[in-house]
């Protein structure tokens, strides 16, 4: 009897491990690329050749896990890098109290009060929770101190209008659940990045009450509510990116090897708006002499509210061209595509440099 139950426990543990693996694999497929996983394996001296995801997992990753050359913790690190950078709108804040906030005893006490202190040892693998859920809390050493990261998984409802198959005059709203991942990251210098997963589908319905609010404001409220005991809202001030938006354009000739613009929007002191955009998405607005002159004249008494900037591929970073959308709230920028941690940090560093 005991043997059976012991055998049963082993089988249960193995099934749970298998389920975890499959879940991590599915998330990697959604958030990463074959090339990135291959690079991860290569860095560990593991075989990596594969032409498709299924082959990569079954012929390369699974054998490495089974032989102990790779652990689930390694895969979790890869998953963290894959889903925590890019496809986000990032909001920047600054605090003077970074050291106090990041204090490990404080974090442990707060998480214990909520019954989730185990997250400090190991993240939860959560797919589509009913409510926004904290799934990962960790600190790691970085320059001049440590960085504190919290990850939240939320189920969003993707809305689509569909024609009723039986009556062409009737349309219905179909809501499909999708998994959204948000990240809060506080560095030793007191800069907090709140990365909210992009809402790429246009919202079909209005909020209750008839107001159409800015979706990312709603997301921020949810995150401040959920994580506000760890990151107290009152201790953080927004970091507007107005200076970066202005300087990137004004210094565009010096920065022509670093960036290009596909559009920008400026607003002057009497409320007039100038919007200038390239016809071709791959073109550079600053190469259009008459458009550039026109912007420079208008911008003398205006601020840049919005721009689409592309950080060019350079050696060593960024490893490819990275698109940054600077729009929405003053402290907001977006990296709409998935990118590596190194590329994201490179671009963030450049933005902060031009914003100083």
């Amino acid at each position, binding site marked *: 009897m005991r043997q059976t139950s012991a055998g049963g426990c082993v089988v249960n543990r193995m099934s749970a491990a298998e389920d975890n693996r499959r879940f991590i694999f599915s998330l990697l497929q959604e958030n990463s690329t074959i090339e990135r996983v291959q690079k991860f394996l290569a860095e560990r001296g593991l075989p990596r050749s594969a032409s498709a995801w299924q082959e990569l997992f079954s012929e390369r990753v699974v054998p490495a896990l089974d032989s102990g050359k790779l652990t689930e913790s390694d895969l979790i690190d890869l998953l963290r890098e894959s889903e925590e950078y890019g496809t986000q*709108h990032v909001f920047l804040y600054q605090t003077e109290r970074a050291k106090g906030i990041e204090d490990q005893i404080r974090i442990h006490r707060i998480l214990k009060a909520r019954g989730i202190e185990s997250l400090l040892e190991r993240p939860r693998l959560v797919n589509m929770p009913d409510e926004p859920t904290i799934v990962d809390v960790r600190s790691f050493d970085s320059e001049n101190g440590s960085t504190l990261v919290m990850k939240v998984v939320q189920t969003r409802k993707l809305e689509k209008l569909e024609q009723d198959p039986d009556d062409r005059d009737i349309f219905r709203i179909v809501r499909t659940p999708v998994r959204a991942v948000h990240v809060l990251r506080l560095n030793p210098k007191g800069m907090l990045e709140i990365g909210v997963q*992009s*809402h*790429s*589908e*246009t919202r079909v319905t209005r909020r209750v009450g008839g107001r159409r609010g800015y979706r990312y404001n709603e997301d921020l409220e949810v995150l401040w509510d959920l994580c506000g005991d760890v990151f107290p809202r009152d201790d953080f001030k927004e970091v507007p990116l107005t200076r970066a938006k202005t300087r990137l354009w004004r210094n565009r000739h010096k920065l022509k090897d670093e960036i290009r613009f*596909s*559009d920008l*929007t400026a607003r002057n002191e009497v409320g007039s708006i100038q*919007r*200038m*955009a*390239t*016809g*071709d*998405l791959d073109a550079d607005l600053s190469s259009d002499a008459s458009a550039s002159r026109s912007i420079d004249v208008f911008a003398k008494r205006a601020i840049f509210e919005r721009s*689409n900037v592309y950080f060019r591929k350079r050696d060593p970073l960024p490893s490819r061209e990275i*698109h940054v*959308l600077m*729009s929405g709230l003053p402290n907001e920028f*977006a990296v*709409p595509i998935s990118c590596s941690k190194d590329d994201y940090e490179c671009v963030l560093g450049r933005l902060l440099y031009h914003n100083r």
Partner: protein
Amino acid sequence: MSSDDFSTIIGEASIGPPDRDRLARVFREARAEHKALTLPHLVYLAQRATGVSAEKLAVALAAVVKRGLAERIVRVESPSGGGIGDFKSLNDVPDKIYDERQDEWISVEPGNVVIVYKF
């Protein structure tokens, strides 16, 4: 085929001198500067320089495109301004397209679509 042949091609569209040569100059300039012009813009330029009607201009343009001296593309533009996708024909334009300039998927409406001639 060189751009000197513009006069020949336009002449084949039943546009005679002096409009033929004036229109050829407009096209030659567009090609030299790699211009990308919508049809209304071309109509404006043509009518400023010549007495050519919009209908005859369309015939001349079709001939120029056929001979490879310009490319006719269907451009989807973002509601916020600027192109977000170029297609060979209207049939190739999808119902929905990712608008990189807004980080949003949008439905393509007729108002978002322009015909562009790239010289």
